[in-house]
């Protein structure tokens, strides 16, 4: 009896073990190593040694504040744009897609069978100075005669929005798809207009998808550097570009490591504030 009891207590841990092991080996251990590295001093030639070099953090904030702020800004704008673009699409597929639902979802995902880099480079062609988009915008006087999109913040944000769109669209679809249509009928039976039914019933029920989608978009977008590198000018570079150059070009591992931690902390704070505002129960709400 006692043994069985013990076993019963063990079961959840056994079930958790593979996940915990994965998290431990591939997240906690490297993170610990990164933390250790972020507090080292020295240089590549003479070697780095651990010395509680908190100065690395201070220097990073002092020297690269614009890039940190820009990263959160771009990621934030891209997340909002992705939400605005994805919501109607996900809504339409979930409510009107009928038997084409799966095919339509495939259309959203299809471009992402192509690698990230190629997709981003495609935007280099789309937004080209001599391309259709720029010519049209010039014609409409949105852009001046010498105006351009490539190597501007617009191009970078556009690239990020595009590249992370499915991370927004798919969770939105899942939460919208699960909504019980009878609830909407009930709302209309109770004299709610279509719009009111949407605002009072559909929207709140889809919030878990909105929360999951925004987090899945915002978090990787804030650390992205490919879009800024290929579609931006030096003035549009994000903190990811700085970390990449510190790590690979300057072999300044402590600086790169400390910046990674600051970025992580900044994202964590942003997410915490957001979760507070919308309520954490939305994360574990009806979508699960």
């Amino acid at each position, binding site marked *: 009896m006692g043994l069985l009891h013990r076993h019963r207590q063990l079961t959840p841990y056994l079930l958790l073990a593979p996940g915990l092991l994965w998290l431990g080996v591939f997240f906690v*251990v*490297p993170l610990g190593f*990164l933390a250790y590295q972020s507090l080292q001093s020295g240089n590549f030639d003479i070697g780095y040694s651990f010395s509680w070099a908190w100065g690395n953090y201070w220097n990073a904030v002092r020297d690269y504040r614009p890039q940190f702020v820009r990263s959160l800004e771009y990621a934030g704008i891209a997340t909002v744009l992705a939400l605005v673009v994805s919501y109607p699409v996900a809504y339409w597929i979930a409510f009107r897609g009928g038997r084409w639902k799966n095919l339509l979802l495939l259309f959203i995902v299809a471009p992402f069978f192509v690698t990230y*880099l190629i997709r981003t480079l495609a935007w280099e062609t789309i937004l080209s100075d001599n391309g259709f988009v720029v010519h049209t915008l010039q014609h409409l006087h949105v852009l001046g005669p*010498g105006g351009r999109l490539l190597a501007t913040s617009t191009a970078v944000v556009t690239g990020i929005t595009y590249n992370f769109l499915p991370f927004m669209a798919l969770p939105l679809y899942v939460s919208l798809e699960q909504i019980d249509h009878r609830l909407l009928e009930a709302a209309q039976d109770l004299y709610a207009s279509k719009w009111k039914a949407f605002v009072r019933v559909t929207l709140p029920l889809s919030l878990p998808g909105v929360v999951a989608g925004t987090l899945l978009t915002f978090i990787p977008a804030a650390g992205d550097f490919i879009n800024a590198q290929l579609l931006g000018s*030096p003035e549009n570079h994000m903190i990811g*570009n700085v970390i990449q150059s510190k790590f*690979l070009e300057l*072999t300044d591992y402590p600086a790169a490591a400390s910046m990674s931690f600051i970025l992580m902390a900044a994202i964590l704070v942003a997410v915490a504030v957001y979760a507070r505002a919308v309520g954490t129960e939305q994360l574990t709400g009806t979508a699960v």
Partner: protein
Amino acid sequence: MTDVLTRRQLFERAAAGGAVLTVPGLLAACGGSSKKAASSTSSHQLAKTLRFSNWTLYMDRNNKNHTYPSLIEFEKKYGVHVRYTTDINDNASFFGKIQGPLSRGQSVDRDIVVLTDNDRYLALMIKKGWAEKLDKSAIPNIKNLIPVQQHPSFDPNREYSLPWQSGMTGIAYNDKLTDPILSIDDLLTNPKLKGKITCLNSMGDALTIVMLANGDDPTKVTDKSFNAAFNKIKQAVDSKQIRQFTGNDYAPLLAKGDLVAAMSWSGDIAQLGNKHLHWNVPKDGGAIWTDNMLIPKGGNVYTACVYMNYVYDPKVQGLMEAGDPKRNITGIYYIPPVAGAGEWAKKYDPSVANNPLIFPPKETLSKVKIFDSNALNNQKYLTAWQNLISA
């Protein structure tokens, strides 16, 4: 997109991969012992396999069956299988990949790697003792090494390295969109080019040609000449003259017309073969860089040296450089370091042998300089440069 990708090009795009590559690096650093480096063999016995890592599109190739004719020839002649991998896309990330194992005395499973002299990593490999000494008794053809390459500052007696190919840095422009751009001052200040030019992100390349335009000596960099060149480029960034810093991803943009002119590598323009794109050494001089073969610690010295000897045969080098249109073989199209390769190249493909970007005439070569290797390792310069290009 052009289907001609030059070796540097891929990486600028695959910069993403760089960051990813370092993650396994970190893990490896945490523990996990891989096999110890085999102590270098100085015996005169060929290994079964030659493990050769090189840049992409940096070998003669048969377009029909996608093989490398000069490597097949080597395999036949010496009975050594060549495991040829084109996994070098830029110096920094490749160094990032091998420095972990090398610093722990572990094998990197390669006998030859190729690194560029205008980046700091080549000198660093030698300085850190991570390169094997060449066995010159196995390389009699070293006599064919052209004089200008015999005593570089990072390896004065060529004890550790031998050139693979060279290239020049200068200005390229699109003649449909501009008058000829022949000087750096024109490139960086001509208002007609505002926002339509790019600067190379490689510090050695960019600073060499700007210093020459300033009348300074890029082979002996001082704080004063560094600052003058740096500020000139910074002004061009601040005035929005310079649109981006690039690797060779400038090439398709130039061909498309998004760029009017660019700081550019000769080989890119030679490979693009677009008749509207012109490349020239700036009027005050250009830069020359060389990719060098090295044997990383633990590599098989004798086998690697036998291969080096093979490619320093002018006949072999001539084919590698020019290819052979009759057999559908494309050449490397960069600048060979082997004397006498030109004559053999002429036999295979006269148009390549007469291309001044591949076999540059003397007056061109007299105008190109090699960047000071000490400056490449100056952390202050490097940090200032990286902050400028990723502002």
